């Protein structure tokens, strides 16, 4: 009986001590925190939706920004460039992330509601062409790549590889990356071969190229991995360096689209993204920073 009583007392003491320690910490934090919060305290919330290519990047930005500015909350959703822009048109988000440019029809619907779509380029992405690591082919020309994806070249031996049929791996038609490659390589008025596998994500493309010896695929630079081989296009291999200096053919801008020029916290957020700190995150995520 006595033992239990003592135990209870000890437990209460421990809890009280713990609580004291916590409050002690709490009261000491603001003192230590005054230095970073030097400029005017930002507060409010931002909602962002859009591109799945950019989702990891957008998350990383929002997390860092919220740590630096505790008064601000930034919510990021994926769903695709089109979904993001539709949400912008409906006025439910502050920014739409888009890995493609806004379509004229979309810009027109914003205009019809009395707004104006403003695009800010917040980073660049290189599209790497990948093959299985067992594939002998090291380089392709843009023309060869186009013919491969149109289904005109069907065998690896035609481009210096083994006598094996080519398996085409692609994203699905509404992906920004699909459209990008179509315009740059396949041809504006031409189409991908019907035999192309239209996979739902970039990671699925990497996995498929890894497991199929005869496959060719395209991925964002951030998804590059040692398990697949990057092929040089027109003699240049995709890398952060070749995208930055503009020598690599397949690179595209990553956009944040707003209704009207960003104001207040939205402006602070974009300015921060374009600053050295924001662009460092672009690099960390495997994308290419914007050069000004």
């Amino acid at each position, binding site marked *: 009986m006595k033992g239990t009583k003592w135990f209870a007392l000890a437990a209460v003491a421990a809890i009280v001590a713990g609580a004291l320690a916590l409050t002690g910490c709490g009261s000491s934090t603001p003192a230590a925190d005054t230095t970073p919060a030097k400029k005017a305290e930002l507060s409010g919330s931002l909602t962002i939706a859009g591109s*799945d290519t950019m989702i990891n990047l957008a998350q990383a930005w929002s997390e860092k920004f919220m740590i630096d500015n505790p008064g601000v909350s930034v919510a990021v959703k994926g*769903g*695709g*460039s*089109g*979904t993001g*822009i*539709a949400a912008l*048109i409906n006025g439910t988000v502050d920014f739409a992330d888009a890995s493609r440019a806004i*379509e004229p*029809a*979309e810009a027109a*619907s914003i205009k019809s509601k009395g707004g104006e779509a403003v695009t800010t380029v917040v980073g660049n992405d290189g599209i790497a062409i990948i093959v299985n690591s067992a594939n002998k082919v090291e380089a392709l020309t843009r023309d060869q790549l186009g013919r491969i994806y149109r289904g005109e070249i069907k065998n690896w031996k035609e481009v210096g590889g083994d006598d*094996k*049929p080519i*398996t085409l791996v692609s994203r*699905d*038609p*509404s*992906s*920004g990356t*699909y*459209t990008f490659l*179509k315009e740059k390589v396949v041809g*504006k*008025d*031409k*189409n*991908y071969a*019907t*035999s*192309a*596998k*239209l*996979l*739902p994500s970039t990671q*699925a493309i990497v*996995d*498929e190229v890894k*497991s*199929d*010896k*005869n*496959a060719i695929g395209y991925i964002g630079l951030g998804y590059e991995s040692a398990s697949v081989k990057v092929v040089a296009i027109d003699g240049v291999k995709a890398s952060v360096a070749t995208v930055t200096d503009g020598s690599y053919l397949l690179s595209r801008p990553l956009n944040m689209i707003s209704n009207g020029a960003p104001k207040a916290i939205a402006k602070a957020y974009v300015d921060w993204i374009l600053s050295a700190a924001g662009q460092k995150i672009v690099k960390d995520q495997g994308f290419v920073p914007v050069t000004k």
Partner: protein
Amino acid sequence: MAFRRAAETVVRVLITTSGWTAIAVLAAITVFLILNARQAISVVGLTKMLTGKLWYPTSTPPLFGFLPYIVASLRATFVALLVAVPLGVAAAVYISEFAGRRTKEVAKTIIEFMAAVPSVVYGLLAVAVAGPLVKEIFNLTSGLTILTAGLALGVMAVPTIVSISEDALHAVPDELRQGSLALGNTRWQTVQKVIVPSAASGIFASVMLGLGRAIGETMVVLMAAGNTMTLTWSLISSGRPMTAVMAGEMGETVQGGLHYSALFVVGLTLFLITFVINLAADTVLERQRVRWRR
């Protein structure tokens, strides 16, 4: 007393409203699909979409033929039925006629649990387990085929088939069972010649519902079917069922655009197919119910 009567009225109104809400929601879905699909139907033409072999929504001019996708849905569903019907019906017969009470309870619980596994998990299993196996067996370069996806769909349709078939078998009046045994038939003969034929319409309905489940499933086919536009009846080549088209493309389209509307036409087609299947299953089930009521 008055209070009781009032309470009863309230409950009755609530239940009636719920019932009508379900019907209203179904009607609203149909109207919504038709409204959104109208643009593509009038611009492209329904026959051209249903019989066209090329789907290039982002090219100029865009092409919206989705015959290869309808065929892919049918191919995947066919494989699913090949797997699910024998497995499901056999399991139902075992549970209803042969298993002891303990086994019966355990087996039913496990099969119900199968229905609770999220479809994305089945998709992962298809990609990671069935894919490499199919690739190996048929000596293919890639394991992402209709067969791979269909196998997973088949496993997913099993719970539907088992539970409804089992109900149908259970509903066969015991007199038939007893009578058959009394005439000197063995248990297997009884099952084969008396029970299963008597429950045939219920079993058929369960297969139809399982089919509806398989044809409408999205995640598994999106992950495992390989998604090519090739028009073929081969089961070991890849394909892109209708559900995969919608799930894959809806996210990035211009909302309200022609492509968006065309995806609704695909949705409407699928909705009509599953609606007819369910209706057929229901009619057959109802017929059996009426028969046993006599």
